[in-house]
């Protein structure tokens, strides 16, 4: 756990981080978000899809830290800075929203598994078509896909984003994704029609799957449960592999409370067992979930 310039795969750290930026925005849908940037006391290895448990430092209530996906991360002169986008909902995120640059945050991370990128290995067999990655995000699920998009591009994988939200202001991280992927590779959908298509993001996703039937595709998705269920159905119907990044209420984030149970298919009488979103996930294959 020593601080090195090039962090390797390592154990999570439990540390106090310092706020560099904490900007609050309100969407026309009245939902509120915080764009949080933290400086960590030491560099850590962060894989796409991983998360941290966060809590305002020194506060008594709420007791539990809140799970937040790493949005972006950057190493500046050996100093690790990480970003999150959080939706302001209950007591935990409300207390985060009160913090200012220089204030401190209790940080536990990096936690959880990462996306399976094994399919990109087809590059060793030039005759095999490189697949295209379809990133599907709803609301504040998009942060969990940004590091993935970066990694896919680094590997030369064509990457497309379908981003949905209630209103334009709920398309979290749209500017950053646009800079990374170019506008042509992003399709947006909003319920109120304020940006992109009107309706759910699964509509343009289905249209795309219809016109690209038989092509090698991989879906990566994160968002509200209802959206993930719809994405899972589409993936099954169009026989496209899909990896879903799940959310569940969790007390610890590192596997000891067993609160964040998700039913996963198993070879037993009931047909499923409960796995933990925090350590077995948060990323699961669509077909392994017993939904």
């Amino acid at each position: 756990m020593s601080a090195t310039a090039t962090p390797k795969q390592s154990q999570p750290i439990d540390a106090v981080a310092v706020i560099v930026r904490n900007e609050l925005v309100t969407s026309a849908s009245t939902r509120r978000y915080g764009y949080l940037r933290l400086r960590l006391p030491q560099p850590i290895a962060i894989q796409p899809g991983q998360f941290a448990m966060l809590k305002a430092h020194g506060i008594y209530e709420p007791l539990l830290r809140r799970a937040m996906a790493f949005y972006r991360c950057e190493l500046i002169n050996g100093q690790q800075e990480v970003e999150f986008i959080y939706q302001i909902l209950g007591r935990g995120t409300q207390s985060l929203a009160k913090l200012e640059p220089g204030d401190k945050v209790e940080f536990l991370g990096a936690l959880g598994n990462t996306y399976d990128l094994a399919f990109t290995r087809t590059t060793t067999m030039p005759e095999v078509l490189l697949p295209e990655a379809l990133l599907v995000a709803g609301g504040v699920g998009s942060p969990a896909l940004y590091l993935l998009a970066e990694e896919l591009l680094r590997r030369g994988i064509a990457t497309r984003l379908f981003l949905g939200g209630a209103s334009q202001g709920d398309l979290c991280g749209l500017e950053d994704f646009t800079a990374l992927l170019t506008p042509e590779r992003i399709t947006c959908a909003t319920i109120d029609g304020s940006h992109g298509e009107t309706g759910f993001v699964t509509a343009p996703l289905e249209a795309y799957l219809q016109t690209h039937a038989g092509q090698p595709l991989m879906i990566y998705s994160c968002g509200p449960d209802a959206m993930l269920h719809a994405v899972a159905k589409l993936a099954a119907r169009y026989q496209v592999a899909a990896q879903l990044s799940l959310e569940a209420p969790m007390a610890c984030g590192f596997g000891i409370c067993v609160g964040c149970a998700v039913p996963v298919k198993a070879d037993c009488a009931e047909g499923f067992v409960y796995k933990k979103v925090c350590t077995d996930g948060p990323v699961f294959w669509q077909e392994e979930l017993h939904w």
Partner: protein
Amino acid sequence: MTDAAPNNQPIAAHSPAAQLAIEIAGVQFNNPVWTASGTCGYGLDMAGLIDLNRLGGICTKGLSAKPMRGNAPWRIVETHGGMLNAIGLQNIGARAFVSEKLPELRNYDTRIIPNVFGYTIEEYIEAIKLLEDGPGIHAYELNISCPNVKAGGESFANDPRQAAAVTEAVKKAATRPVIVKMSPNVTDIAAIARAVEAAGADALSLINTAVGMSIDIHTRRPRLANVTGGLSGPAIKPIAVRCVFQAARAVRIPLIGIGGIATTEDALEFIIAGASAVQVGTANFYDPTAAMKIVDGLADYCTRHNLENIRALVGTVVLN
């Protein structure tokens, strides 16, 4: 260890090791701070975040004779000063604990205390027998808060006779000391404590969670899929201190205090009420280093108060 005591007396005998070493039911513990069942997995799950060698003991997640799948989600909800859980005792089973977890856990210089439960006395015995095969186990902790399905579903912990019956049966089957874990959801905890002591328990740990409930006012549905759950965390600490205090006046066997312990001050309160050791539970979730900080804090307290050993403080509550 080189720190001088405030009055500059030599402190050779007052090393943290000497100050905190305790014995309970014939087992030597490096210190009186353990992690509580269900809040530290099988111990190893915390190895990346804390030094397990610094814990006095580790009470494992509740183990049954057969693996248990646990309850449907949602299983947890945070309340004020605590949380409700209805995990449903999900565990890998006593056999898998012995073969998959114990060999690695034994490498640490701590005491290993499997927490055991069942829904009939026979199931408790079955689990104990599987654990008897495991080397390096120091004691058992019996979670008697489960419903006894052969006696109308009433919890073993609620009835002095049932509590005594399961204790007696397990004592016969176990070659290791048996700590019986008490439930706060009873009218007269002293009566249960006496019955369990008479049945041969080597020590009591208390308390398990307090039954609670939380409702979402928008959907009017219980927030937990299981409807009710166990309340833990700082919110239950005064109840737990009271239970330890009452049990201390009822029995002579050692007590292990549990319930909302997150700081050194919390632990001291339990010790003064009558606990020889303490367990840290929910605090592990939001501050994994809480138990280690309490170990340091207790040693510091001994030094400041010139106590040779923390045991001098046990049950020293001053009553007018």
